[in-house]
């Protein structure tokens, strides 16, 4: 049994060590895999704030992931084709600058989360799961038929966007960007969890009635958590699109939302590092099992089943010997 705080550092170091090893071993694709894991982890960290701390089981977080992706796609598309983005009353130029894209992705996905949250938080339980799914499906179908930006074919960006002072096309440098962002968000998440707001959110999940009777509004607290959560997942979406240099409606698909939830459960719900463990393991399995057999989904399914049945509290719960981050 390992103390969770030690384990957390170990996990982070592990994720950092793999690409560094790959760099020396000249295995650039391994770096790409690690980058993918870091970005998926970031998306799931976002969801974990809503789901793990706030108890808001969103089955629609692909919506924010996709919004982030399309923010990147649309801005970069206008920049690479030198056409301004026409917004009716005014038009803006596209951009290939990552920081600006990130900012727009954060703001727009946060805004979407605010609207969706406002409407969805009236419901609870399975209804909340399904109403968030419904919103994501609307985005999915809309993006499929939105021919301006490629519809189902998606949108290709030929060159990865730029970050001042870095060569983002170099796999290890792009990994560095993603890893630093992941660490920043994890740090923010850790602070948030221990902050007065985190305390209120945590209580709003467990005993909303109590939160009300001390004069706080659980709805507003959950809504804000949902906005933060959506914004982070949106940021991850922008990075994911940049990793692939491509966006498509699949980023909005319900399978994507499901995958985020799965990542969290594998790692451990509500655990700080749960999403990181889940994403790393998922990418690893996908890569390794896929090499073994055409029917690798069967084995993936079996492994997931074993995790649910025998490692309650996810892998972190299993390793630390504590079943739940809560409970």
């Amino acid at each position, binding site marked *: 049994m390992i103390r969770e705080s030690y384990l957390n550092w170990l996990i982070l170091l592990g994720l950092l060590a793999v690409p560094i090893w790959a760099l020396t071993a000249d295995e650039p694709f391994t770096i790409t895999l690690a980058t993918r894991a870091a970005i998926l982890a970031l998306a799931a960290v976002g969801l974990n704030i809503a789901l793990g701390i706030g108890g808001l089981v969103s089955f629609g977080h692909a919506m924010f992931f996709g919004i982030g992706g399309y923010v990147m796609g649309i801005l970069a598309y206008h920049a690479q084709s030198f056409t301004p983005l026409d917004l009716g009353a005014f038009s803006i130029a596209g951009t290939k600058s990552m920081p600006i894209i990130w900012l727009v992705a954060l703001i727009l996905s946060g805004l979407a989360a605010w609207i969706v949250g406002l*409407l969805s938080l009236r*419901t609870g339980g399975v209804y909340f*799961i399904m109403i968030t799914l419904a919103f994501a499906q609307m985005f999915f179908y809309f993006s499929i038929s939105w021919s301006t930006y490629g519809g189902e074919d998606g949108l290709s960006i030929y060159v990865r966007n730029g970050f001042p002072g870095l060569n983002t096309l170099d796999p290890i440098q792009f990994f560095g960007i993603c890893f630093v962002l992941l660490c920043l968000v994890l740090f923010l998440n850790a602070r948030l969890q221990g902050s007065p707001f985190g305390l209120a959110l945590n209580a709003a999940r467990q005993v909303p009635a109590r939160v009300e009777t001390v004069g706080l509004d659980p709805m507003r607290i959950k809504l804000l958590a949902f906005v933060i959560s959506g914004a982070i997942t949106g940021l991850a979406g922008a990075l994911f699109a940049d990793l692939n240099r491509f966006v498509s409606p699949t980023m909005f698909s319900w399978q994507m939302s499901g995958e985020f939830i*799965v990542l969290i*459960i594998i790692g451990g719900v509500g655990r700080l590092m749960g999403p990181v463990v889940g994403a790393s393991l998922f990418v690893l399995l996908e890569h390794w099992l896929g090499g073994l057999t055409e029917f690798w989904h069967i084995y993936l399914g079996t492994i997931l089943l074993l995790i*649910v049945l025998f490692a309650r509290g996810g892998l972190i719960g299993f390793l630390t010997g504590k079943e739940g981050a809560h409970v």
Partner: protein
Amino acid sequence: MSTILIIEQVLNGVQFGVMLFLMAAGLTLIFGVMGLINLAHGSLYMVGAFAAAAVAGATGSFLLALVAALAAAAAAGALIEMVVIRRLYQAAHLDQVLATFALILIFTEGTRWFFGSFPLFLDIPDYLSGPVTLPGGIQYPLYRLALIAIGLAVGAGLWWLIERTRLGIQIRAGENDREMIAALGVDISRLYTLVFALGAALAGLAGALVGAIQSVQVGMGEPVLILAFVVIVIGGIGSIRGAFVGAILVGLTDTLGGIFLPGFFGLFMAPGAASQTGSAIASMAIYILMTLVLIWRPSGLFGARA
């Protein structure tokens, strides 16, 4: 648009809704009694369709195919209930989601491994093929009328089962209070297996019936699964009546939306663009419907619990 066409489209919507009901009824029953979110329900639909196609191919009998679909799906349902699901009743909803998601992966690739990657053939039996002329001169496929009839009959049968039989009493008791039925001396684990198999059989039946007019292929269950969830959420989870109303609503919305929205946009847009915009909105229509219903009634039309 002529009246005949509209009536025909309403029939289409009802038929689609009735098939959705078969899926949704099992899903809502399983959730109502066991509190389980079963993502693998779509896989049982697929199992039914594949079993039917295999048996129809071997024997040439559509009735035998339906029986095989019912049996195979019920058996698959009972099996996963006893091997996996049973261990998860005490677990959090999220664990159930992950476990049943894993089952989807296993079923989908397992079916592909067993039957191959190409779609299977399953056809309407001769005695149900071709159109019939309805009063008013509407030409309508006989098979689709049969689907409506079968769906309604199953719905009535379910109502009878739940309202009028001993098993129904146990199911209703199970929805309200697990401890109580245990105290009454009902064998809970047998009841759960039974309900799960019943839900699975309904999904398998739907798969076989629909498979005859669609394509029997790997992955056919997932889109239907999402629709079935939409249905039970609109209707109110756990309510069979809600599932029925929800299914018809979704069926009509989807069918009529696809017809009228392009025409509606055609009033003020060029035909090609109108068709494109209309169909884009139409594909979102049921989700918009669900959202509106939930905003209006946060626990569905007939839902008791929030």
